[in-house]
């Protein structure tokens, strides 16, 4: 079947920036779980061999001409999925921290609860992957701040392991936060009256490299995300999807 008529309604997107050490393992582990599903790696202007390694691993690779940031890379995948009539998209990060065995759990929750987006929460797993104190504190703080805005508690609002349906795809392909998009994306969905939830998922150690959020970037991250949330709350636009489902 040609790419214009997708063989499956499900697409897996993997945003990656300088992940040559981890990307082939990520593709392989997704393939083990979903052998028929198209995997697209969005190479966000890496200066290492990420794109070539991903192609050798059997994924389709979109090479962005320069670094856009995580949100720009993820939105490229969402745009492609929306334009090619995919019904569901799962985002798996290129560092190998997400366990593809949990993808079915995300999709099942989305189907069962008629949610538009379901994300994986590492904090709902007892004795899961150990999280650094600062990270845990940040997640708790965001969770606490977001509670009144979202109208529900999200234990892991920074999670990038998400499944979205066509309704969310339509929203995200048109507008998606550029930097640190996960938290703002929740607010965007809430503003559009779309539904979201989270399920417990296991977090694995990084296959290679290290997190970009540490030290001073963590402080910048906090301020930047809080400002983004505030802007999204007060944003003026014609509110569509005003009917709340469920």
């Amino acid at each position, binding site marked *: 079947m040609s*790419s214009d008529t997708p063989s499956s309604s499900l697409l897996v997107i993997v945003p990656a920036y300088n992940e040559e050490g981890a990307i082939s393992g990520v593709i392989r582990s997704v393939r083990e779980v979903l052998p028929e599903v198209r995997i697209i790696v969005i190479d966000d202007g890496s200066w290492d061999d990420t794109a070539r390694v991903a192609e050798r691993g059997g994924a389709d*690779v979109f090479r*962005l001409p320069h670094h856009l940031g995580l949100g720009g890379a993820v*939105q490229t995948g969402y745009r492609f999925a929306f334009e090619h009539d995919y019904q569901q998209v799962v985002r798996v990060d290129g560092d190998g921290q997400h366990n593809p065995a949990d993808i079915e759990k995300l999709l099942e929750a989305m189907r069962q609860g008629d949610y538009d987006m379901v994300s994986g929460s590492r904090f709902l797993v007892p004795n899961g992957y150990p999280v650094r104190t600062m990270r845990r504190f940040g997640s708790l703080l965001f969770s606490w701040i977001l509670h009144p805005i979202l109208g529900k508690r999200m234990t892991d609002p920074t999670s990038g392991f998400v499944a979205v349906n066509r309704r969310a795809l339509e929203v995200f392909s048109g507008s998606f936060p550029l930097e640190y998009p996960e938290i703002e994306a929740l607010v965007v969905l809430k503003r559009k009256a779309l539904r979201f939830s989270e399920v417990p998922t296991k977090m694995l150690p990084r296959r290679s490299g290290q997190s970009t959020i540490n030290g001073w970037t963590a402080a910048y991250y906090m301020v930047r995300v809080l400002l983004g949330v505030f802007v999204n709350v007060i944003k003026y636009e014609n509110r569509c999807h005003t009917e709340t489902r469920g």
Partner: protein
Amino acid sequence: MEQIRVVTTVFCLLLLFQIVRSVRREHIRVEYSMAWFGVAVLLLGLCLSKTALNWLSWVLGIHDSSLVFLVVAGVLFLTIFFRSSIQVSGLKDHNIVLAQKIGLLEWELKRQGVEIAQLREQKSPRERPDSSGVQ
């Protein structure tokens, strides 16, 4: 006060000269130079006209003329910087869309190239018997 007027006049003239030079060399587009032209001319007018500066200090309620000049210059520069930020944000949005489209189009081109190559390969064995017949 006279000294600061001389200094600011020289600064404004230098700014005007630099704007004209940048426009001539196409370092700055005409539409983006307009705001800077306006600021330079306005500040130069304030430097050269004592009456205008006195009137403005009366309006603002500031008795120190040099402080008036600084306040006006500060407000004008902040306005220009803010306007520039809006323009940069718009350009960044366009840039993101373009970069995404390039990424998608390059992949599409590559995919079509592979499909064409496969079609040629499928076609060539059928053509081979004819060519062998000619030989």
